[in-house]
């Protein structure tokens, strides 16, 4: 990304932090040995993997043996959900998730639905929150697993995970949470919240793409999905992505520190951005919860315009952002998350997601606050709806 471009799509992916890359470099060059080998080079790599596993564990207040490395958040979600459900004695039953999950969870639960399980997709309130009484009503005697996204990737709503898990455990139901967006954004202590399974991904936290991890609490059995040489404590086979593992370890360590050093500044920028966007023109609305939201996420909706057109205009001005518009997705369906919080398809179309990162500056916020209102104005003038059309 050239210096003059402004990158505000950190929920899409993040650059690799230079310190993370520095930690990875030896493993992309001289330390290339296979960690399963018994010679010195292999043992050295094995030790490094152990260290990275400890880094990931520590950042979550877990232990090394709770951590399974995977190829990313998607695999972690698949393994967390299918692996735990398949290892239960009962070969069917009921699975609960929400209407605002990432496809990695939605499609996986649907897969279970296609294979003999009952599934419930819980509605959320207009802020994108799972309501505890709605959840309580949905739990059945044969409910096996509840999977709820910790921090939503679109509107940024953060769930009351501790209460959700408490409720689930009172009813003896396992809980998986997709924390791909929440890790390194909000403090997460797996012991404190008591979660059973938690997914995370490298490339959302200044680590590399193609690596992720699944936390599995002590004593919980999961069935492996990928069969082979028995790597990762026999739970996930495949030669270890060593540079990825090392990068994820470092990124988790840095992410934990960044919660106090970086995140307050990011949140302050985000707050100023949100305020500025809301004040710049009429009929502009916040999506998601005003307080219980990921600290880097600004998600706003402008009536009468369409998101792809907004993004392309921003792109021409050098600003990288995301939208909930169907027109920018392959499926051409409006964001299921925005529909779930009660927007009409037309409303969903006009949404803009700006997700900040530690490299963003106040000056960039100023630039975006200048650019967006001008584009909204231009597009509204073209629109047959609302202001433009009347």
């Amino acid at each position, binding site marked *: 990304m050239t210096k003059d471009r402004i990158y505000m799509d950190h929920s899409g992916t993040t650059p690799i932090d230079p310190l993370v890359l520095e930690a990875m470099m030896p493993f992309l060059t001289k330390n290339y040995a296979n960690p399963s080998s018994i010679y010195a080079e292999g043992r050295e790599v094995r030790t490094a993997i152990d260290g990275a596993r400890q880094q990931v564990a520590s950042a979550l207040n877990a232990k090394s043996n709770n951590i399974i490395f995977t190829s990313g958040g998607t695999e972690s979600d698949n393994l967390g959900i299918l692996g735990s459900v398949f290892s239960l004695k009962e070969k069917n039953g009921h699975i609960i998730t929400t209407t605002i999950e990432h496809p990695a969870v939605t499609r996986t639960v649907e897969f279970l639905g296609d294979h003999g399980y009952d599934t419930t997709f819980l509605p959320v309130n207009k802020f994108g929150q799972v309501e505890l009484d709605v959840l309580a009503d949905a739990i059945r005697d044969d409910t096996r697993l509840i999977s709820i996204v910790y921090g939503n990737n679109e509107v940024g709503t953060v769930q009351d995970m501790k209460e959700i898990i408490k409720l689930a455990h009172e009813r003896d139901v396992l809980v998986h949470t997709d924390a791909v967006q929440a890790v390194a954004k909000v403090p997460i202590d797996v012991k404190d919240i008591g979660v059973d399974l938690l997914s995370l991904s490298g490339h959302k936290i200044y680590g590399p793409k193609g690596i992720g991890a699944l936390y599995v609490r002590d004593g919980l059995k999961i069935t492996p999905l990928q069969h082979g040489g028995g790597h990762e404590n026999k739970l996930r086979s495949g030669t270890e992505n060593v540079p990825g593992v090392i990068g994820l370890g470092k990124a988790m360590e840095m992410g934990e520190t960044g919660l106090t050093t970086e995140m307050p500044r990011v949140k302050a920028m985000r707050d100023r951005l949100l305020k500025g966007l809301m004040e710049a023109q009429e009929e502009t609305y916040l999506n998601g919860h005003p307080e219980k939201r990921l600290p880097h996420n600004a998600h706003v909706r402008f009536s*009468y*315009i*369409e*998101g*792809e*057109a907004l993004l*392309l*205009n921003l792109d*021409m001005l050098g600003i990288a952002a995301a939208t909930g*518009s*169907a*027109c*920018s997705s*392959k499926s*051409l369906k*409006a964001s299921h998350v925005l529909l779930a919080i009660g927007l009409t*398809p*037309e409303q969903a*179309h006009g949404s803009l997601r700006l997700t900040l990162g530690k490299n963003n500056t106040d000056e960039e916020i100023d630039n975006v606050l200048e650019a967006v209102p001008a584009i909204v104005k231009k597009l509204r*003038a*073209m*629109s*047959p*709806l609302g202001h*433009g*059309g009347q």
Partner: protein
Amino acid sequence: MYSKKVMDHFMNPRNVGEMENPDAIGEVGNPTCGDLMKMYLRIENNIIKDIKFQTFGCGAAIATSSMITELAMGKTLDEALELTRDDVADNLNGLPPVKMHCSNLSADALRAAIEDYKKKHH
């Protein structure tokens, strides 16, 4: 994703805006994609003397709207009625396949406007 031509028409749309007292208006929408197009015509002697559009929609929707106004301007109504979605896409040097069916509504909008005119002047 989009050709240079699409981006040009999208960023600098021709004939955009509302028309005062048009001779005809056509409006079409595609529920799948949520695009909405409004086409305004000024017609003299069965010739399109002026044309304007308003579009709620993605880059392709805006670009195709702009393109059809260029293609239709100055044509007779019968000539204009022959303009197809493919003409629009071809003149834009192509559209992403997924957008071909979704956002390429401008020929339909033009047709709707012409039909509106014919109905009124029947």
